[in-house]
């Protein structure tokens, strides 16, 4: 019995498969991580349990099933680090809270710097993180090697590693288990999780949303919370709402199971890599975003090839690892690489989208804040800066300039 790659057993029961009721107090559109977490916190924090989560496919089958599970909170701006750090704190108690083994592993996250400007940006971010109460440190190339011995820190590579920011509390978790943990608790609390139920229309009367039309019938509701990631624009357009969002394919890939070689998470912006070794032993790696708009959950192969070149630059040891599977999600990108969470011009319609490539790490945090927003018809202080209006006022939370890859 080797046992070392075994993962914990799942619970014997996860969720019911109920028929939709004619009406709910709140309908959450999108049964991904964010939608499920929102439903859970609606019930847990606000006592709102007459809730349906509508999922057009299978629960957590969108970006939740397709991301590279990196968790960190070392964002540059105060607004970002606040909501991500709130999320990270929730991650730290989530396994217990959900009663589900989510394999949350705080193995640390390295963000590499490859140019002098990368170094400046990194030091800036580390200092900002520290003053915001987020654990962060700057490590030089030798320090990178100490944390992750397989990183090639030779000065002879095309873009040598000059150092990195390191967040020890960052890490990874098992995405499916996280979603299922939220789903199971939400189900226990009486929330209906309804799969294979696509929303085909939103009923608005007098500027107020009152119902949802679905492939499984019409549902009356007091409030609608949209949590549909890459499909948000399509849903919003049903009520004539335009969003500053573009949906792009984002690909990721996985190798075979390998003996442990990679103890942490390494991300690099210049040599575009983000990689970790999952619990069972497979290398999990994200590729660059495909440039074009696409809903097809597939990207172009030259993006994967480029990704492999980048990976081998930093990790020559990966040369004969094998690609077993590639896939793509649909990511909802915003002009400032920050999300949109809050109220909409339509009464009782709430919006959570625009997380782009970084939504997984925010799952508990945004669920908490979005539930608050829906319950109180008012944003939680952590998501107040992420209102739709910021694009009009110009008060963007521009994380492009923050040097960290936004995953």
């Amino acid at each position: 019995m080797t046992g070392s790659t075994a993962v914990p057993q799942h619970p014997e029961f996860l969720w019911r498969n109920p028929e939709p009721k004619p009406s709910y107090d709140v309908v959450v559109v999108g049964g991904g991580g964010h939608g499920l977490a929102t439903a859970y916190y609606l019930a847990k924090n606000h006592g709102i349990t007459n809730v349906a989560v509508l999922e057009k496919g299978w629960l957590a089958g969108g970006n939740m099933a397709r991301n590279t599970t990196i968790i960190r909170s070392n964002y540059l701006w105060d607004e970002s680090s606040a909501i991500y750090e709130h999320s990270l704190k929730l991650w730290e108690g989530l396994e217990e809270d959900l009663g589900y083994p989510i394999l949350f592993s705080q193995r640390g996250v390295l963000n590499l710097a490859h140019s002098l400007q990368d170094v400046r940006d990194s030091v800036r971010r580390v200092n900002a993180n520290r003053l915001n109460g987020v654990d962060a440190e700057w490590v030089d190339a030798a320090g990178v090697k100490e944390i992750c011995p397989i990183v090639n820190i030779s000065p002879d590579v095309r873009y040598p590693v000059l150092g990195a920011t390191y967040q020890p509390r960052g890490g990874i978790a098992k995405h499916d288990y996280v979603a299922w943990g939220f789903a199971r608790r939400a189900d226990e609390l009486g929330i209906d999780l309804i799969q294979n139920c696509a929303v085909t229309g939103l009923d608005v009367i007098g500027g107020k949303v009152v119902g949802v039309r679905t492939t499984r019938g019409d549902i009356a509701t007091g409030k609608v919370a949209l949590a549909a990631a890459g499909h948000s624009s399509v849903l919003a357009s049903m009520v004539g709402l335009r969003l500053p969002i573009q949906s792009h394919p984002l690909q990721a890939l996985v190798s075979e199971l390998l003996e442990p070689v990679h103890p942490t998470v390494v991300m690099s912006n210049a040599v575009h890599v983000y990689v970790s070794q999952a619990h069972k032993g497979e290398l999990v790696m994200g590729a660059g975003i495909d440039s074009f708009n696409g809903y097809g959950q597939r990207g172009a192969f030259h993006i994967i090839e480029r990704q492999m070149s980048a990976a081998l630059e930093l990790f020559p040891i990966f040369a004969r690892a094998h690609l077993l599977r590639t896939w793509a999600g649909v990511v909802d990108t915003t002009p400032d690489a920050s999300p949109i969470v809050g109220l909409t011009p339509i009464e009782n319609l709430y919006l959570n989208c625009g997380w782009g490539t970084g939504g997984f790490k925010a799952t508990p945090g945004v669920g908490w804040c979005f539930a608050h927003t829906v319950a109180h018809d008012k944003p939680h202080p952590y998501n107040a800066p992420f209102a739709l209006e910021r694009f009009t006022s110009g008060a963007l939370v521009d994380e492009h300039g923050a040097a960290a890859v936004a995953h």
Partner: protein
Amino acid sequence: MTRLTTGGLIDRTTVLSFSFDGRPYAGHPGDTLASALLANGVHRVATSVNRGRPRGIMAAGVEEASALVQLEAPFPEPMLSATTIELYEGLVARGLPGRGKLADRPDPARYDAIHAHCDVLVVGAGPAGLMAALTAARAGSRVVLVDEQPMVGGSLLGTRGELSDWTATVLAELTSTPEVLVLSRTTAFGYYDDGFVLALQKRTDHLGAAAPDNAARQRIWRLRAKQVILATGAHERPVVFADNDRPGVMLAQAGRTYLNRYGVLAGNRILVFTTNDSAYVAAVELAEAGAEVTVVDPRTDLAPFWAAECARVGIAVRPGHMVTGTTGEERVTGVHLAAYPSGGASATVHCDLLLVSGGWNPTVHLFSQARGKLEYDAELGAFLPVAGLPGAGVVGVRVTGAAAGTVSLAGCLAGGAAEAVAALRDLGVAAQPVAPPPVGTDRVERAGLVLWTVPVEISLDGSDLSDTRFVDLQRDATVGDVLRAAGAGLRSVEHVKRYTTIGTAHDQGKTSGLIASGIMADALGVDMAALGTTTYRPPYASVSFAALAGRDRGAIFDPVRVTAIHSWHIEHGAQFEDVGQWKRPLCYPRRTAFGGLEDLPAAVARETRAARTGVAMLDASTLGKINVQGVDAGEFLDRIYTNIISTLKPGFVRYAVMCGMDGMILDDGTVMRVSDTEFVLTTTTGNAAKVLDWLEEFAQTEWPDLRVHLTSVTEQWATIPVVGPLSRQVIAAVAPALDVSNEAFGFMTWRSAEIAGIEARICRISFSGELAYEVNVPSWYGIAVWQAVFDAGQPYGITPYGTETMHVLRAEKGYPIIGQDTDGTVTPQDLGMSWVVSKKKLDFVGKRSFSRAENLRPDRKHLVGLLPVDRSVLLAEGAQVIADPDVSQLPVVMLGHVTSSYRSVALGGTFGLALVRSGRDRIGERLFAWQDGEVVPVMVTGPVLYDEEGARRDG
């Protein structure tokens, strides 16, 4: 001895030595590692990942889910199927306990990629694929035929040489036809948009250590086909029963392939458990090869032909029975039988090989990747490509042969030709199907019994963790796991896959995926068609990272750009910095009196001193340069830049800033007017391509009415600023015909002049505040002119300087570097450069954004200077600026950050630039820079710290 003395496609005259799990063995060319192991009586190959159970060889191809090995020589490679490794001399391998091991040394092999375009791409060189390729080839089309095996034939390779003469003839014709490319050892692993197929060719793997060093080991083929014909065959699938994972339990077709292709009789007492007629031929051939064979078939209505054949060769047939379990440890020793479906009348039969067939799964991976729709065929128990229905197929993709569910050989041959004719018709080519070779009567005439697992108690609480009915051998996932998943409330095959991990291993569920769905459907009482399959995703078979990285590694991971003067910099000991793709000298350390090299601060102190007090020179050739021509060039630039350009006169130069639509600074540089209709712009080094793209986009899409043309001339000009109070003397010396006086050649003008006999453009511009002449010559002459200036400057102690000195000089003058002192959230006004924003122009890119609420806030961040109270303390670039040094309460309010920080000879101490909230209103205030726990008191000043009145620019 399990190796037969005759037969098969192996070369018995050559012996290959290899080692497995530390023991020496011998095999022959033509063997796979799996066949060679079986020939040596080795059945146990690996150990299962979670339960540590012995595992053997279950297949003869890429669908293998069990026999995973680690190659150790000639170079370590993790996790390969023993069934896909061609044997070579000196092979060293070991069985894997579920996880591979990466090499701890660099991979010496080379990899590359190649593009090919064709009319018709045929994937699979079995009977259907060969017919398709031949039909297309004879029609004169450009054809590529790829096949994963070292030789063509596909499923025929597992037969007793059936149609072997024909396949040889076809191969000869194909390879001799111009415009036809046959690629063996090449696995098509991904279908992407518009007929783009990726294939991996294993070029030298089969040579082992004898592989030539100069040949690419593996090659990625990027195939673009107008029509794709998938003749990818089918994978046999097993039936699940208890202890079905023992070594010696094998797919029936694999047993037949080992016999016929490799001359290996994998067992002497063989039990064949089949639900369909296809395994009977294996049983008969194995019996004829000398094995004692028993057939167990749950069906009671045996086909008369096969009943007679079995009788002829002495095979005992047990109709109406099933295998419920096995005995043995390292290898199967016996089989439990019982009546089907009741489970009664159980008995145990001895055997040393158990062959299983539960039917066939058409290999629809590429079709599915191409978004082809699949439909469940209840008779075959398989998902088949839907063809012929409107909207169901995929343009340009066809499936034929066993991959399309065709069972008979004759059907496959005819189908391949027919699909080629149809594909050619779509290309506007009229073609005739080639005549198929004669084949015998097909004896597999009816569909079998669809049986995923032998009947089991369906119990959704199924928490029996000792279950040994394995669905996915590699993941140690069982029937019980599937039932548990259903019991947990899961109704989607994708959820079941994730809950059980079935289908996520090296084989990606080629044999297990459908069985899991079938068990699930049976357990829930739902229709298999409604349940569907999990998604097929690339790659079809595993591909090494290195193969995909190809040649784009090391120095050519990203092109290295160097200036025309680069060799001089190297000769003179420059240290380099990566700026975008460019290599730029950071500084030129000199030998010290003690024989060592100056460190960066020492070199920079010396270089800055030279520029401020004598003369120094810089290679600024990396600056982006864009030539703008046309009668509307001035108008165009007025719309792009924040300031007015059209009023600039020929012979003059202007500093200019461009913003994005959002009003944030995008880039800055100088604009030189060459003539009424020609300008040359400079951009920052890293932004050159981005700025050209930006300008072209506007010129073409927003203002196509403007007559303007844009050309990158970055690489056409070498740019050499000659800087310092003594620069005039140096320029006068190299350009004797040029009047270098301030009166004749004023600041912000440019002149044409000969320098060292080379026609040059010389600009009186300065990024240091000192008197400076920027010399521009065609790159071809760059190094000659650089040397001439350097030589002419010797009497004045001319000093070459690098980017760090450039940065210090400009920072002392408060000149920002876009991208260092700005970060995409900074406006010209934030930098204190309202003067560069025209009030007169009606509009320019970004203007409207300046009047947004956020831009009008008085507390925006401003660029200011920071002087540490202790002028020996160097601020960290990236230090945060705070008002209150008490940081015990987090979070702390941050006012901004230090963007630039240097030691300055001219200022007699350290200084910095910073973006600080309401910074201009804080000039004279004492603030604090926080860096890694250290609090440094600083005074806020204006950004210009040196020669504020600008007296030095004229020397």
